[in-house]
């Protein structure tokens, strides 16, 4: 982690141990939806809570012709519509917008970067941003390399001031497969050092994902049983009831494997499977995550059919409403072979997890929106209770619910009250939201603040993205070689294709109903 802490005797005992130094954030693609819906509302929320340094400035950079005033008005509308602190507070907005400016520029035109340099120099002079910069790539990935090359050519990756820092935030997707991810990484590294690059996966900014780390490494009782000796299998479900939501063009090129599994789901796998890090510092945590990802058993092309199930939803019903099939969604090829459902079995070849399958399942238009990690424990070694006494007895399951109803539940066996010995499984639940009133910040708030502070713990490192692409690329290649699937193969509003149930049944297991 880069050192940005400042000794301040007034800070002792306050909630924030560190606050970021003044800086300017340049957002490329600032006229887009991500800026209006997520980034600016997140920055505004930080401003409302007093978490931004005085003098913090935003430079929007995009091709669209717009004045700074029009840009500010557009962002204000975004805050009024999407901020969790909406509508914008007039006093806060008035001072916050003083730090917002807009620069119309082409991504490939070197002279526009000269104007950007002038604007940043002005901010240093007038708002005390001290040469500290964050460049945020909120553009389509096809523009990443051009922008980074031009930043380098204009000298904007270096600072004239001795203690100033430069950081680059890159939005997912980081490539389409292993080769393109490696190529992108190499390209970025020609202009920025790895320690300056913050690859953002907003899932890691979610409170409950971070709570997984707290749960594992702040509770002594789980670590001794967190291994192959006690755990039978791990199931990770990331279900969405929504469809493509107007992202047909993008989604049809990506599919669920790239859109959800390569990033969000494998991040969860790494958090569950990783060894305890030596410290809670960025590289120590990421070292262990990478080791877990690298230990995923290599996927052979001839095995892909045996370890995956893919599906695409047809028309159906969600919450009593008829919904169209994937191929009827706008922007989707009517003969599309893109998967909207994936189930994968991964094995992690290390001492802790040898032989424990990790079942991953993600899909669109499933009955409900839910994300959870379920750790299913082994049955007792010698069952004392058999027959009808224990008919409804199930193995212990520790479920970490990411959304909704964030929390943790443990399924245990208990005696049903009465004269007979009858057992049944009951859930012991801890509902995260019932114990802590603090409103969870939006994932982007946490991540943007971390970037300003120079804390990259919740960002993915180069080797991490590449390790995550390795098994995914092998699956993609296997699918490309296989005969085209018969799509659609599940009805919207169901838990995916029947083959997904058969897939687990072959292993003598069944999916949890999350």
């Amino acid at each position, binding site marked *: 982690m880069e050192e940005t802490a*400042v000794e301040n*005797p007034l800070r002792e005992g306050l*909630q924030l141990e560190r*606050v970021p130094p003044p800086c300017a954030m340049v957002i490329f693609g600032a006229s887009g939806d991500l800026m209006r819906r997520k980034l600016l509302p997140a920055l505004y929320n930080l401003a409302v*809570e*007093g978490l931004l340094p*005085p003098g913090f400035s935003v430079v929007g950079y995009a091709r669209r012709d717009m004045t700074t005033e029009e840009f500010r008005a557009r962002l204000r509308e975004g805050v009024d519509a999407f901020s969790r602190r909406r509508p914008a507070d007039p006093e806060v907005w008035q001072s916050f917008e003083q730090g917002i400016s807009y620069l119309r520029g082409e991504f490939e035109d070197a002279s526009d970067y000269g104007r950007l340099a002038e604007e940043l120099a002005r901010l240093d002079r007038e708002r005390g941003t001290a040469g500290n910069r964050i460049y945020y790539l909120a553009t389509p990935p096809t523009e990443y390399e051009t922008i980074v090359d031009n930043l380098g050519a204009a000298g904007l990756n270096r600072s004239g001031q001795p203690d100033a820092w430069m950081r680059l935030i890159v939005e997912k997707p980081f490539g389409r497969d292993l080769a393109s991810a490696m190529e992108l990484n190499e390209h970025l590294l020609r202009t920025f050092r790895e320690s300056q690059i913050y690859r953002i996966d907003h899932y890691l900014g979610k409170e409950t994902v971070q709570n997984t780390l707290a749960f594992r490494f702040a509770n002594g009782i789980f670590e001794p049983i967190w291994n192959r000796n006690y755990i039978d299998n791990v199931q990770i479900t990331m279900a969405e009831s929504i469809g493509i939501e107007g992202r047909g063009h993008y989604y049809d090129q990506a599919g669920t494997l790239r859109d959800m599994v390569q990033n969000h789901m494998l991040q969860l796998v790494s958090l569950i499977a990783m060894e305890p890090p030596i410290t809670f510092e960025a590289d120590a945590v990421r070292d262990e995550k990478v080791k877990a990802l690298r230990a995923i058993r290599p996927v052979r092309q001839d095995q892909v059919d045996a370890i995956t199930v893919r599906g695409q939803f047809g028309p159906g019903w969600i919450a009593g409403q008829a919904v169209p099939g994937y191929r009827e969604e706008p922007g989707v090829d009517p003969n599309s072979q893109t998967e909207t459902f994936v189930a994968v079995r991964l094995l992690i070849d290390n001492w802790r997890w040898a032989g424990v399958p990790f079942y991953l399942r993600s899909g669109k238009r499933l009955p409900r929106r839910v994300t959870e990690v379920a750790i299913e424990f082994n049955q007792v070694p010698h069952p004392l209770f058999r027959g009808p006494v224990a008919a409804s007895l199930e193995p212990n399951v520790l479920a970490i619910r990411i959304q909704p109803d964030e929390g943790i539940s443990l399924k245990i066996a208990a005696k049903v009250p009465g004269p007979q010995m009858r057992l049944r499984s009951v859930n012991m639940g801890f509902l995260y*939201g*019932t*114990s802590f009133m603090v409103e969870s910040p939006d994932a982007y708030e946490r991540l943007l603040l971390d970037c300003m502070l120079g804390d990259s713990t919740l960002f993915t490192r180069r080797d991490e993205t590449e390790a995550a692409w390795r098994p995914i690329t092998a699956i993609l290649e296997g699918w490309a070689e296989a005969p085209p699937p018969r799509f659609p193969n599940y009805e919207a509003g169901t838990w995916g294709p029947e083959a997904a149930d058969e897939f687990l049944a072959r292993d003598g297991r069944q999916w949890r109903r999350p």
Partner: protein
Amino acid sequence: MAELDLTREVHGFPGSPIDVDAIARELSGLWQAPDVDELRREAVVPSRTSVLNLIVHATDPDSAARVEQVVDRLAVHHPSRVIIFAVSHEPGDFSTDVDAEVNAHCLVRGAESRLAPCYEQVTIPTPPDALPYLRTVIDPLLLPDLPTILWWTGPLPLHDRDFARTVTVADRLIFDSLAFTQGAANLGRVADLCRAVADRCALSDLAWTRLRQWRELTAHFFDIPEHRWALDEVTRVTVSYGRGRGQDDNPVEAFLYAGWAASRLGWQLVRGERRERGGWEFLVRRAEGGELTLIVKPVTVSHSFHGALMSAALAARDRWRSAEFSAARVGDRSAIRMAIGQQGRTVLEHAVRCAPPDLSTLLVHELNQLGRDRVFEDALHEARHFADALRLWGIP
């Protein structure tokens, strides 16, 4: 969000001791009520959740009613076993034969949710002279192995030995020194209580909790390395607090703020005097040598801002430069504008939303605290010096 409320009364005899066992029995009985079974049939699991024991001493029937509303809001996110002692006006007067009312309250959140967090509440009508036996009622009703918080809604009976004994049943005592009629004068007594019980029971003053925003914002100025020099070269500090028309002066928040700055920066009080235009002026010695002037002054405000800190400004100067750092409530007073001036020119302005926190927000913050707040204790220690000095010097 749907709600389920189950209430039972525990009947006793007028004048007889409170039947604690009967209260405990009724609490258990609530969970066998038909309404709870109904929830289970709808595949919603009532989850009896408690993260702490919250004991509330409500000084009068009006405050008991307010407490119930606040507890309701707290419980959504911070379920506890709540025991409310609702103090009546007349000593020894039980106007009812009801010993207590036990209540279970479940919140059923939206269609997606299958868990309904529930909390339990016991309300015990209490005569005002119950202090000697209060802890004997509290103890058997506590859930084991959970932190116990005692929230005292009115002025603390700081002279009463039974109060000091009652306090030690809790891990934390929450009070609000703005509720004291002579807030500043009582700072010394609170500091003494703190010293006496700190090893067993931490203290939380909601007046201090309200200062959290101000402390954050003040610290913010000096997170910027270029401004750090100013902390060693402060020449003048001006702190203003609200005084509602017709209300007794209560500068306790202002003194706590000054105490905080003094304790963090190693300042020592030299002398003080009354200002002609209201408030007080102190001469203070800085840790590194040199002196500064500290002004604490009232500004007229509406009732809702009575006693609240309204602005804080620090001016600093050394041989080469000068700067002023100010934060003040502006507009409808729900935002705080921060400004940095250098050589008489404003170089940066910055506003943050800082509506005065409501009671439940303040309490939640304190309920999240475990252990002693050393920064508060240090600030209280320094604040008492300011307040005591005025008294010793006969300054009104």
